Structure formats: C-alpha cells, structure tokens
C-alpha cells in the first residue's frame, strides 16, 4: 500500500554532546553494540513500517553518514518510486546557535513541498527504539489530533535524560507542557523527539518558528505552542527498549544495557529487522587462551584474553592475558597482551599496548580517543 507519510531523520541537535566520539562523526554515525550505527534504528523503523520515502538531514561531517547510507539499498529503500535522500545543510560556523532543525528544513523547503505524502513522521538520529510508525500514523489519523508526540516513561530522570525534553500529559493523553528535563523528579515522560503531523502543518510550523526566532528549534517552538494551547497535541506512550544517546554516559550505558537478553529481545524481533551496511567482515576467532562471559562480540575479532560484561566491535584484537571488563570497544581497536581495562569506551583504531591498566567506573567510564596509541 502506498504510504501516506514520508519520514524525516533529523540532524544532530545542538544539545546532543557526546564527549570525544562526536569530534569525529555525528551522533547518527556512532557505532552501536559493535555492528550497527545509531541511525540504523530510526531508518529501519521507517523501512519496516512501509515508509520508504525518507529524508535524512546532515549537518557536520556528512561523509560518515553518506558512505554508510549510500542509496539506501541496505535498508530496502532504493526503489525507483521511493527513496532515501540525503540533505546537506549549511553548518553555521559563525555561531552555533543558528544550527537548528528549522534552518535545515528551510534550506530544503522546496524538496519538502514537492513530496506527495500528506503526513510527515519525524524521528531523531540519536535515539534507539523500535516503533511501528504505520500503526502510530493510523492512530494519529483516527484520533483527529493535530500532532502526535511519542514519549517514554522513565523512573531515573534525576540523573538521566538531562539533555532531553520532558512532557506533561493529562488523563486524556493531551500534552500539557514540554520543557527541558531539569532533573527535579525521577518519574518523567521523556519526549522521544518523534512526532507525526500533516505536512502542511509541519511547513507552517517551520516558517512560523523562523519568524519567531532564528535560533529556535521545532521542539522549542512546540513548547511555546503547547502553552498557548493552539493545537490539539496528543501524547502516545512508547513501550519497550528506549535509549537516548546524547552524552558519553548514555552512550556507554545504552550499549551495555543490551547485554540484558530482555532488552535485546525487545529491540530485535523476527520480522522487524535492523538493517545496516555490511562490512564483509569474517567471523571472529576465540582462542583456547580466551575467556568470554556476558558479552557481545562483533565479527572479525581475535580474542586471546578475557572479555566480561563488554561490547566488542568489529575486527578488534584482544591480546593474551588482556582483561576487558565493562567496556565498549569500537572497531579495529587493539588491546595488547596483558592490558587490563575496566569501564572504558575505546574509540576506533585505538591501540592500547604500553599502558597496562586503565580503570574507570561504570558511573564514570573513561574514553580513549580514535586512533590513539597508549
């Protein structure tokens, strides 16, 4: 059935700030649990929901995502009718405040206007969750609301999701407020930066926001409009696994949280494939000297040492006598013989050979820079 909506995957918003990792690539391009990129999740959600016309907005470092997404073939999005399109936005170097999603959309307004679909579904590039957008859209249409916003109930908002917005939702599921999470309560409804509305209203809002303030994002504008009660805005609760990758700690925790089989089963279900570009890596070899417990190992690895409670990316070498605990190791890293790591994020191509011990805590994991030699 021809989809009634097109999808937008937003560029990384200003408030997402993942120490280190983000110096090299936008949040959507972060490696996730060893073999995926974070952006694979929103794009697979769209593809699995039959929404095949997708716009991805790129801001800084476009090459990382251009190479990964290509023509969208890996996501079954390269048909002649519908497709994955990449939009390059001017990154305003003169002042970061100008870099908003609204400025991205304005740069490409005629591409938005040209699309035949009546609705638009907007999803962020930096959040990981599974959602059938097709049923969400049907519900939205049935509800008669102007906008449907997706939220997730959390019980740890005092020290988590501090870069997110939280929503007030009344008993009729109407959104009553939208504001930055200030960490003043544990229980919150975190806005998943995911919403559905008519394309015409979307374009209206974009233009209205630009007039209101050149530095406002659409979410900021929504906060204002919700206060004014101008639109009927419905909140829908998302259930299942949810992670927001917006700082180093959340990147670390969300990777390791998928070692819990319950979370993994929730995110990876038969028939709801998470697509990604193949790297043609060979399988991994676990040596007789190795010990591996409660870990995920991507392909192409050689494991000669001990790995526990860790996520290991592609083509990683873990030497004899090395101990890797509570770590997230990215592609092509090399952990030398006898090296002990605890609670570390090791970026791609890093080699830890001479430094024999780096210990962090799960509450404050360390970060080793890309291609560094330690």
């Amino acid at each position, binding site marked *: 059935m021809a989809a009634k909506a097109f999808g937008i995957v937003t560029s990384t918003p200003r408030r997402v700030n993942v120490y280190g990792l983000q110096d090299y690539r936008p949040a959507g391009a972060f490696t996730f649990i*060893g*073999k995926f990129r974070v952006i694979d999740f929103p794009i697979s959600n769209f593809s699995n929901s039959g929404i095949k016309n997708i716009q991805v907005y790129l801001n800084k470092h476009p090459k990382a995502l251009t190479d990964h997404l290509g023509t969208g073939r890996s996501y079954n999005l390269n048909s002649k009718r519908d497709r994955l399109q990449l939009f390059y936005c001017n990154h305003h170097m003169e002042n970061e405040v100008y870099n908003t999603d609204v400025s991205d959309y304005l740069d490409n307004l005629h591409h938005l206007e040209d699309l035949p679909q009546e609705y638009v579904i907007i999803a962020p590039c930096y959040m990981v969750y599974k959602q059938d957008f097709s049923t969400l859209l049907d519900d939205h249409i049935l509800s008669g609301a102007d906008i449907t916003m997706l939220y997730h109930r959390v019980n740890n908002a005092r020290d988590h999701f501090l870069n997110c917005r939280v929503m007030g939702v009344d008993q009729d599921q109407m959104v009553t407020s939208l504001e930055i999470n200030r960490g003043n309560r544990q229980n919150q409804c975190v806005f998943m930066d995911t919403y559905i509305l008519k394309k015409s209203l979307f374009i209206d809002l974009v233009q209205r926001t630009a007039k209101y303030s050149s530095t406002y994002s659409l979410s900021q504008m929504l906060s204002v409009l919700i206060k004014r009660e101008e639109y009927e805005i419905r909140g829908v609760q998302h259930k299942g696994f949810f992670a927001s990758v917006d700082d180093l700690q959340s990147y670390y925790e969300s990777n390791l949280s998928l070692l819990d089989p319950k979370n993994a089963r929730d995110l990876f279900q038969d028939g709801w494939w*998470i*697509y990604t570009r193949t790297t043609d890596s060979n399988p991994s*070899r*676990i040596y*007789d000297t190795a010990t*591996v417990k409660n870990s*995920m190992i991507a*392909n192409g690895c050689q494991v000669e040492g001990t790995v526990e409670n860790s996520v290991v990316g592609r083509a990683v070498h873990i030497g004899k006598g090395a101990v890797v605990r509570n770590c997230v190791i990215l592609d092509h890293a090399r952990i030398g013989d006898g090296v002990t790591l605890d609670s570390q994020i090791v970026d791609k191509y890093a080699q830890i050979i001479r430094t024999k011990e780096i210990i962090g805590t799960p509450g404050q994991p360390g970060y080793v820079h890309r291609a560094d030699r330690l």
Partner: protein
Amino acid sequence: MKQGNMLAMILAGGRGSRLHELTDKVAKPAVSYGGKYRIVDFPLSNCANSGINIVGVLTQYESVLLNSYVAAGSRWGLDSDDAGVFVLTPREKADSGLDVYRGTADAISQNIDFIDQYNPEYLLILSGDHIYKMNYDKMLQAHIEQGANATIAVRPVPIKEASRFGIMNTNEDGDIVEFEEKPAHPKSNLASMGIYIFTWKDLRKLLISDMKDPDSDHDFGKNIIPTMLAENKKLIAYRFEGYWKDVGTIDSLWEANMDLLDEKDELDLSDPTWRIYSEDASSLPAYIGPDAVLDRVYLTQGTQVEGTAKNSVLSTLSQVKAGAKVIDTVLMPNAKVEEGATVTRAIVASGVKIGKGAVVGSADSENIILVSKNVKGVE
C-alpha cells in the same frame, strides 16, 4: 589489456551426492561453510577481486536457493550496470529442445550464445565446490604472456597421493605435454584444480565440434584437454601454492571448517586486500552468556552461546543453550543445541534442532556425523 575481457563460468551443476542430505534442498555451491559463507562465495569473490565483471553459474539442480542467492550480485559488488551474476540452466532454443547438461564441456556449449553476447577474449572455467583464494587475473597474465591456447591451474600434491588426481605432466618450460586421469604410476605431482583459462575463439571451435561428436563425454578433462594436446595446442600449467580444499564430502567439509580454528590460518579470511563477500544477517553480534565457556571457537554474528563450545565453528543464528556442549563440531546456520545436549564430531545441518539432553556423535567416531534431522530430547 582492458578490464572485462575475461568472462567466468562456474560449473555448479553437481548434485554433490557425497554431501548427502546437505544438498537435498540446496545445490552444492550453496552449502554453508565457515560460519557465514556459502561455498560459491569463494569463486564469486575471487572473480570480483580479480576484476571479472560477468559470471555465469551453470546449474540444473535445485537452483532456486542458489538462484536467489547469486542473483543479488551486489553481495560481491557484481551489480554495476555492466556487471552481473547469471544462473544458467538448460533451456529450449529455436532449434533444440530442453535437455540436461551432458557434461562439463556441454554445459559451456549450451551457453555459447550467452558468452558471445559479451564477446570476451578469454573464458575462465571454475568449479563451484573449492575453498581457496586465487587471483585469476595473474593467471590470465601468464596465459597471455606465454601465448597459450589454454592454461590450467595446478597444485603440487604429495607424490604418493598423486594417483588420486588428474595429473599434468609438463616439460621444462611448464608446457603441458600429457594429461593423465588418476594415473597408477604418476610421472608428476601437479594435480589439476579444474580451473581453466581458454582463449575463447579457440575453445568455441572445439566445443562446436565436440557437441556433434557422439562418442564424446563432453567433458573438459576427458575430451577437450586431450583433443587440444593431440592437436599440439599450447597448454600451460599455472602453479598455485596457497590454501586449497575440495569440500565434496562431509569429512572434507568438516576439515575445511576446522582449519579455520587453526592459529596459522592459511586461508586468512580477514585479509583486507582479498575479502570473501557473503550475505550478512540482520542480527545482533554474537552473544556469549554469563555462564558460557568458549575454547577455540570460530563464531559469527547472531550466534548465541550459553553453554560450552570447544573446537567448533558456530554459524549465523546458531545456538548453544545452557548446559549444552558442542565439541569438534560445525553448527550450520540456525542449528540449535538445546539445554544439556552434547554434540561431538558432527556437522549439524541448517535449522536442525538437537533436543534437550540428547547425545549425538562421539569423540572416537571414524567419520564425521551429519545431523540433518531434528534429534529428539531426552526428558
């Protein structure tokens, strides 16, 4: 020399009956190997890496899975506008009915029209059931430099085993002077690998006359090569030294898998300059549970191990449940070993389930057991 002047044909016709039930539903080249590969990935990836754009895969047996598999030429990067992988089965023509391929040479003869479409200068003939990495472009360079009509890839075998192979006897220049199929008293240890480069216009003529010969078996080894030798054509031997394995039997398929556990790893599938391309599962990475024990294991994404795996190859989406033991075994894709079961010295076929507590195979069996049907649990 411009790229693209050599076209490759992979002979994948065989039912591979020595592989028993593994080939009941898939053609031999589509049989799984090494955790994430299929056998045909090797010749196809070698072609792609050698700069060959057009590959024909000749088959007449159970081609559906093979067809769907190879038709997605993108897996090997063989999907640009001028490239492609084509499954070629027997077909009716304006002047002939539907007929099976009568032999390796006849399979090519029946597809002369396909080859002519691309007008290649050289034709590369490959077998679909060998595991090896080889640069066919270098072999072509030798063929061109020495002005050969045909070039045959050979590898040295221990002289005492030579009588099991097709042996090429060469003069000091490397020219082939004699070909003996399984000679009782071998004069050389150079065994044919079943890989041939022919200058296409020479071969084309020979094939057309061979098609009409009622006494011919229409076979490269038995007919075409001897005819060329008889006609004093220049045939040269091209020596290959790397890892090579025929995986035509259960035992040899198992051995080839076990070779991947070896630290020396002569095949080296991680070589970034010569990747073997295959399909990738949309699955999690390999997951190893809190109580798992791994000891010399080759494993790929989608694998789940909660029990013990030792000296084993675990393929895509295979599972070793808590308390289960998998020893000296190959689990093919989607094979599941349930709680408490033990599998030893076996190949467990794709999708097969070994029930709870079942015991399959033994450490001192002479041959490798093929488990191609579900095994009931013991409860």
